[in-house]
């Protein structure tokens, strides 16, 4: 059990535990805060995968914006401050069955693939993922078109969200 494996197991257990608390806790603000810790665990997983830029962008975008948006939405949509009762709907057993069978299916699907026990090759020396990523995001031969389309999508979402949530007096 090398050090890297121990670190990964700790991070994975932390993230999965937080994820479990997100979907089972009764208090919604607590669920949003458990989501924050799940997202932070995922950011640490990105760091373990040498995707440093993804890790920082995860913290900035998900924790710094999306999680805060969730907390605001939870606070703005509460009728009163009391406990809302059990938060599972009446078909929760079916949801649980489906989730377990999805996980089981994915697990068995993965067993049949022989590339599974690959270990990571070392990153070539002097390869800066951030520089390479930046170059590819703006070069016409690479990914500038999805990049521009994503920015158009964000503008559309911005205008749409403001319009939908606007409180017309």
């Amino acid at each position, binding site marked *: 059990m090398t050090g890297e494996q121990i670190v990964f197991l700790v991070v994975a257990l932390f993230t999965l535990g937080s994820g479990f608390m997100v979907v089972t806790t009764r208090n919604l603000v607590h669920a949003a805060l458990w989501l924050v810790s799940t997202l932070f665990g995922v950011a640490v997983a990105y760091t373990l995968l040498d995707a*440093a830029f993804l890790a920082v962008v995860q*913290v*900035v975008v998900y924790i710094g*914006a999306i999680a805060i948006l969730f907390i605001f939405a939870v*606070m703005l949509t509460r009728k009163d401050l009391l406990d809302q009762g059990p938060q599972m709907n009446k078909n929760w057993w079916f949801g649980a069955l489906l989730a377990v069978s999805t996980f089981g299916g994915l697990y068995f699907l993965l067993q049949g693939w022989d590339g599974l026990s690959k270990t990571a090759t070392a990153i070539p020396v002097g390869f800066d993922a951030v520089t390479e990523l930046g170059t590819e995001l703006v070069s016409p031969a690479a990914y500038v078109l999805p990049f521009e389309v994503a920015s158009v999508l964000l503008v559309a979402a911005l205008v749409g969200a403001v319009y939908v949530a606007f409180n017309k007096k």
Partner: protein
Amino acid sequence: MSFWNDPLKVAADWLLGIFTGWGMPEIAANILIGFLGVLLLISVLMVLDIFLVWVERKVVARFQDRLGPNRVGPFGLIQPFADIIKLIIKEDTTPGGADKVVYNIAPMLSMMSVLILWAVVPLAPKMLGVDLNIGALYIIASGAIGTLSIIMAGWSSNNKFALIGAFRQVAVMVSFEVPMLTMLLIPTIFAGSMGMGAITEAQDIWYVFLAPLGAVIFLIAAIAELGRAPFDMAEGESELVSGYNIEYSGMKFGMFYAGELLHAFTFGGFWSILFFGGYRFFGLEQVNPVLAIAVIVFKAMLGYWIIMWVKYTLLRIRIDHMLAFNWKFLTPLGFTLLMMTALMNALLAGTPTWLYISGMFLSNVVIAWVALEIARSVSRREREKVEGPKQVVEAIHH
């Protein structure tokens, strides 16, 4: 190498020798030495924080034409220790109905978001916690954690005013991250890297001469991020009885307060790293790392002094004016400046240095002038809508 030339490496090697002499495997010894380094940095920062309390109180006193603390110790230097002791022995209340776990974690997260910033501050050549090549984004990320801690504090206090204060503070912080991010990209363009160490190494000419408007906008956005006046709507005592930290007493409040001062000092440091050369001072930093640390602490203190100067001179701005200022003025200005900087950097790439510096400087001045003219005409139009157009005859009448 002697101790004075490279103190950290000498100490680390000596400790490694001791630990492996005790039979520890080398990896564990290295991790332990890393932890000890972090502990050393945090201890120095907390002592500096206590000193900052004294600086803050003396400076605010002088701005307000009085003396400040001068009874406890020479020049009042022991005053912050008295403050901390008072805060520690104060009763640690938790409001009834508060969410205990979230209430207790919030001040810790707030302090943590400030302390983790110091991992990327370059104190001397080759002496920084982690040489992240995405240091600029890391600053924004720790701001995100600070924002989260404020919401947690405001919500868990079970208090309407704390919640309103927290919402306002978070709205301001999230809004002003946009111009701050665009201004962080300007030194990135000049240096070719987002890492703080690389930006400092590339500053043969301080970037404040290449992008003065960028430095000003970064300062404004940083003051708003810190939640200090004139942007401290969330803490206005006349409006909100101190905002998200109403219900906090004792050392938890002390953590918020000391964290805010240390945050201000840290952003003074980042302002000086990004625009004023960091630890560089005409080659002085090559002589000795201790001199480099002294240079950067001095520059950070200057930045902190400017932030304090702004705080104790200007009046508080209303929340809707603050947000309108950000979205209608600072953000378009920031983006325009970023585009102009990138364009001029590409156009003037091969030209001699004096042409490059004057070209960039003039482009900044032109953008600032045009922006101010637009702002003036818009505000004149707003004023005329309210007051009616100015009568020339009336002015001659007197």
